[in-house]
């Protein structure tokens, strides 16, 4: 097509992608592709002759996640002639399938896995320093959480390419906060508690999961812990939960609990979404899904709620950075692949702006960027409500903060050790001192005691 600039071509490509997948309108602003990049030479990976790639990744939660990922992959095949098969697997099945692949040395060449996986399978992965350094140089560097999860712990060796993270924020009803006299959520503990009391008095309680909810329960417990400066482990990975900061967090949970809607002790990961959509709560911590579902619903009642939703980072309390973590997804290339260069070239292609930008924008903040430059795209401004989800990965906090990331970190979260500690104190079923000792003992079953 003569007469077209590179930018125009990219534009039409991106809008074709977005149009084809019926992404909500605001996603279309991503077609601007306004990603600031540095001029860095392409590392020039030479795919092996006759290469083909198999990719395994977690199933979508929002439709564009899958449609745009597939479209980008198809584009790669059209450009390079390398066939790529992408399998989407339900979240619970990801870890067992990754374990089988790693242990048998057969199966997908690339697995986009969760959290601590690169650390667990470190010896079975192809180092990707060249690719990670190239992307960092071109796109303004990696966010802190990417550096923590994707490099071999304590070294600068890249085990995987962090593709993004799913972060949380305070989701609240603007009109109800206004009625209580607030334009935004106070950033300190005392102010936040006072606001929750006023909201509750007005018949609009807040709600946070205190039940066995893997994501939301652990997210709320981590916020309490980190916003008070407490931590599960010290930098050596030894359990350091039994501290005066944790006791302060527990006492705060006890005061906050009466301001919450009834029944949070049995909440699972879907409960706060349901309660918020039903108008039973005025504020909760969640990913973008509550807003996404309400906004794209044909139900006028949910549409009205969507118009009344806003997001803000969770109150910092004593923390310097957002006291919350993201669920990081990492693309790992396994040593058993016959086509390591083709895999690297595929990952490079997927992380470059013409592909990554529409994907990120189409997901409307469901995934947040691992590379800093992608936080400067215009679509984040098109809907100011999404702002708190930009740069969710710009935080030093992770499961089992401040110790090394390992299989043990996931074990503590999976056993709801911290959630149960806060739940038992909040409901007066244990004293803070007894609960923290019990939780420290439970955590020490997996971490160093």
């Amino acid at each position, binding site marked *: 097509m003569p007469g077209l600039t590179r930018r125009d071509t990219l534009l039409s490509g991106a809008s074709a992608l977005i149009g084809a997948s019926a992404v909500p309108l605001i996603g279309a602003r991503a077609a601007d592709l306004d990603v600031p990049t540095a001029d860095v030479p392409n590392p020039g990976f030479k795919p092996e002759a006759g290469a083909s790639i198999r990719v395994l990744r977690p199933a979508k939660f929002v439709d564009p996640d899958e449609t745009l990922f597939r479209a980008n992959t198809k584009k790669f095949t059209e450009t390079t002639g390398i066939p790529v098969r992408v399998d989407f697997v339900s979240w619970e099945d990801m870890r067992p399938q990754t*374990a089988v692949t790693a242990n048998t040395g057969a199966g997908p060449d690339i697995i986009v896995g969760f959290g601590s996986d690169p650390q667990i399978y470190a010896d079975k992965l192809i180092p990707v320093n060249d690719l990670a350094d190239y992307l960092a140089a071109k796109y303004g560097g990696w966010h802190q959480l990417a550096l923590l999860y994707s490099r071999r712990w304590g070294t600068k060796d890249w085990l995987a390419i962090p593709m993004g993270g799913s972060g949380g924020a305070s989701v609240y009803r603007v009109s109800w906060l206004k009625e209580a006299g607030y334009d935004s959520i106070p950033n300190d503990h005392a102010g936040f508690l006072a606001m929750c009391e006023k909201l509750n008095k007005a018949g609009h309680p807040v709600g946070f999961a205190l039940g066995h909810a893997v994501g939301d329960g652990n997210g709320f417990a981590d916020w309490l812990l980190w916003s008070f400066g407490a931590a599960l482990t010290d930098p050596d990975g030894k359990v350091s939960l039994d501290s005066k900061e944790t006791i302060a967090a527990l006492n705060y949970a006890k005061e906050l609990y009466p301001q919450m809607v009834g029944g949070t002790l049995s*909440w699972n990961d879907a409960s706060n979404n349901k309660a918020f959509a039903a108008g*039973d709560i005025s504020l909760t911590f969640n990913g973008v899904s509550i807003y996404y579902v309400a906004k794209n619903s044909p139900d006028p009642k949910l549409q009205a709620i969507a118009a009344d939703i806003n997001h803000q980072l969770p109150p910092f309390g004593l923390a310097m950075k957002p006291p919350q973590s993201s669920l990081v997804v990492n693309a790992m290339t396994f040593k058993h692949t016959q086509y390591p260069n083709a895999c690297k070239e595929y990952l490079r292609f997927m992380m470059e702006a013409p592909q990554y930008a529409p994907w990120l924008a189409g997901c409307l903040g469901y995934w947040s960027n691992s590379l800093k430059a992608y936080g400067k795209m215009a679509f984040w401004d098109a809907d100011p409500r999404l702002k708190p989800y930009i740069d969710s990965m710009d935080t030093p906090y992770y499961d089992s903060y401040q110790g090394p990331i390992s*299989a043990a970190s996931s*074990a503590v979260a999976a056993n*709801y050790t911290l959630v*149960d500690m806060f739940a*038992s104190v909040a409901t007066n*079923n244990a004293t803070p001192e007894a609960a923290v000792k019990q939780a420290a003992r439970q955590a020490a079953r997996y971490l160093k005691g």
Partner: protein
Amino acid sequence: MDATTGELILNWKPRAQHSRIGKLFDSKPFLVTLCMLPTAGLLLIFLTYPLGLGLWLSLTDTTIGQPGEYIGLDNFTSLFDDPVFWGAVWYTIFYTAVATAGKFLLGLWLAMLLNHHLPFKAFIRAIVLLPWIVPTVLSSIAWWWIYDPQFSIVSYILVDVLHLRAHYIDFLGSPWSARWSLIVANIWRGIPFVAITLLAGLQTISPSLYEAALLDGATGWQKFRRITVPLLMPILSVALTLSVLFTFSDFQLVYAITRGGPFNSTHLMATLAFQRAIPGSQLGEGAAIAVSMIPFLLIATLVCFFGVGRRKWQQGSDND
């Protein structure tokens, strides 16, 4: 005559002598072994191997992703000091005992009602089986909605329709109410199995016994106590054994409704084993919890089978 007999004897040759294979197939031990092989193979592959692997894993520190090493009984000694494990053991026993008792009382009652002549008998019996037929995960989700703190139909009727209560009931919000709620759901699911099994047993009891008792002037209670119960015992013991096994190893109901919460008060051994092994990735520890269920299951089975159903028919005699 002699010659004929002699010829006959001479002509008769055992067929087995024709070939070695034929001889082999005439050997009874060989045939028995051969016929048992497919079954033995299936049992070995699908029962012995997983059980053996589970036992082995429980003696190692295997995690998801890392092949473990043999660590002896370390998993068990560490579980011995774990209050969450003992809480799960305790609740599993309580859950099994209470739910089984409930299922049998209500199941027997239902079976006796169904044993009468009713209009649409076959249809009603089919309906009764519904809770048992519906996949447990589906009915668990239905119960989860029924127990939901914000959207419970029970609360809705009590609060918004009948105005009997001011607040919604928090079924799963405290340890004891959560435990009882799960037991109720389990009883609901288990009644059909007991009722239909016992109904089959009731129908084998000859009506003439009841007629004879009637002529002798027996009361309803006496008929139940002296005729129904003794004659129902054989099937009762089998149903009880199966029911205890199903209840003890229950998983789906608890996992779908509470996941062991609030603060681990409703963990069954099966749910705790899964939580530690798969999401928690400690395969060795999870296997140790699963293996710990075996002695309890053995004891429960033996008690049910020999304690309740100690009848002569079990030793091969008539039941008098």
